[in-house]
């Protein structure tokens, strides 16, 4: 009898502890998730009109060149940036874990500071350096006799500026993940390698790099997701331009929804894009056995 009473009491306590989170999560995540799916079958304009129109939004999206172009552009942006998202933090981590480095804390701190910035401010900061007319980079180019570059008028160059900003604010974070990975590698392996006469660069490529594969995998997944949903950074730099050459999927959804008042269409686009993110999350979930290591 007592046992049963206690079990009841614990069940009640469990729910008391969990309810605040669960209620907020339900109202502001699960409900919007359901609403998004529902909106995607309507012509909701965010105000008055909301009629069920079946699969029309999906048909429109899948026959719309702009949608494909935006998705393709986002994927190209993501894939082109991935090598840098891995190589730069890895090199920085190798540098700050080197026994030969003096002032390790200072270097780590300074490299990490950009991580603290909002994406908007990071975008603005880098944009300021790459200003077309009175930017520092163009000024220096002119100093060495090169013609100034049209950072904001040329689609490729605008993408380069965004990529620089994106790598700038993420490098310190991924560097720390790599530092953790490097510290987990047994020192004995390096000692054995050096006894066998291996050079440091050999040790890096034969020991460090292969043993860091799990970290690299995490960095790859995290940066893929973050690159695919790049938005605030672009708002500090090019606002999606010139034209729509730096408009990525999140901005496309917002433009359709909040600027064109096509909530239904935007929701349908969101549902389609979600599938992409769910696949990535599943891969991550599998690989980390429940998200445990991230």
């Amino acid at each position: 009898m007592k046992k049963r009473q206690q079990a009841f009491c614990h069940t009640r306590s469990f729910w008391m502890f969990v309810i605040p989170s669960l209620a907020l999560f339900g109202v502001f995540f699960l409900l919007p998730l359901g609403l998004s799916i529902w909106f995607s079958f309507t012509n909701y304009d965010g105000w008055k009109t909301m009629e069920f129109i079946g699969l029309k939004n999906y048909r429109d999206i899948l026959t719309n060149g702009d949608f494909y172009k935006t998705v393709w552009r986002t994927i190209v942006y993501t894939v082109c940036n991935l090598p840098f998202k891995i190589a730069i933090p890895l090199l920085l981590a190798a540098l700050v874990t080197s026994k030969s480095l003096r002032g390790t804390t200072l270097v780590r701190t300074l490299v990490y500071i950009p991580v603290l910035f909002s994406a908007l401010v990071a975008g603005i900061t880098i944009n300021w350096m790459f200003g077309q007319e009175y930017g520092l980079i163009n000024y220096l180019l002119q100093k060495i006799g090169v013609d100034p570059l049209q950072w904001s008028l040329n689609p490729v160059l605008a993408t380069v500026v965004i990529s620089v900003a994106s790598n700038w604010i993420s490098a310190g974070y991924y560097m720390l993940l790599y530092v953790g990975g490097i510290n987990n590698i047994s020192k004995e392996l390096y000692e054995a390698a050096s006894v066998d006469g291996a050079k440091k660069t050999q040790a890096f490529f034969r020991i460090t790099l292969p043993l860091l594969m799990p970290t690299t995998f995490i960095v790859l997944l995290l940066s893929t997701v973050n690159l695919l949903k790049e938005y605030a950074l672009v708002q500090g730099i090019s606002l999606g331009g010139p034209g729509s050459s730096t408009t990525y999927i999140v901005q496309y959804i917002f433009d359709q929804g909040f600027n064109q008042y096509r909530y239904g269409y935007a929701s349908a686009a969101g549902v389609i894009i979600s599938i992409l993110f769910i696949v990535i999350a599943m891969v991550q979930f599998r690989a980390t056995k429940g998200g445990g290591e991230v």
Partner: protein
Amino acid sequence: MEGAGKRKLEVCLVTILGMAAALLMIFPIIWLCFSSFKPSSELFAYPLHLFPQDPDGSAYQGVVEDGLFTYVKNSLFLAVVGTLITVGISAMCGYALAIYRKEISYVNKVFAVFLLGTLIPGEILTIAQFTVVSEMGLYNNIWGCILPVVTTTTGIFMYRQHYMSIPLELVESGRLDGASEFHIFRALMLPLGSSVTITLTIFSFMWRWNDYILPLMVLSDQENFTIQIAIKSYIGTMGVDWNSILAASILSIIPIIVIFIVLQRYITGGLAASGVKG
């Protein structure tokens, strides 16, 4: 002897390389900071100088007159209140998911519901979230930027992992003493989770201070703007008010940098376990 010389050379080279990397990373901020003290006549004139030739705080004066203190106050409210709620509810939830996992059969199913939150980025749901916020009458209200984001799976997860490593006997002993379940949590177990509390507090503060998308959609009156939205408002379709934007950007990063420098060991230590999701 030759070995020692070679070693010295290596230390020298690696240190130079390290300092160069650090300088390269920090330079854009230094450039932004010095630029913010230049009057427009100097911002947009060649040749460029690193140091302001004629330092001038008028840009700062301008943003203060534009209502900077109101924006900072709103940002602080968002960050402080949001963080208090996040830490409170995440600690309770993560604790319960860990402590009752053996007694109650469906605990892991409840946890799985929260894991759904990691599947889809919040950005994708913003339009529907905005609809919910409006329907609740929270449009143009700072609470409309707080409530949707306070539940973070990352926070719940951190506490759950932490409390799973604490022996259940400790809870049992509290029960034998006749303490209520909530009292055990608050008086006995919460202090044991202080390492997670500190890490989550710092990160949550930073996430909320830097929040952009939801405040941009939800806040419409200038008097309700957070500092990020105020900065954004200096970027017009016709052009950018660079003087104001440089000064406001510098002011917006000062609190975060101060917190980072004071609490650095918690940030870089707790980070590997925390993930990036805000």
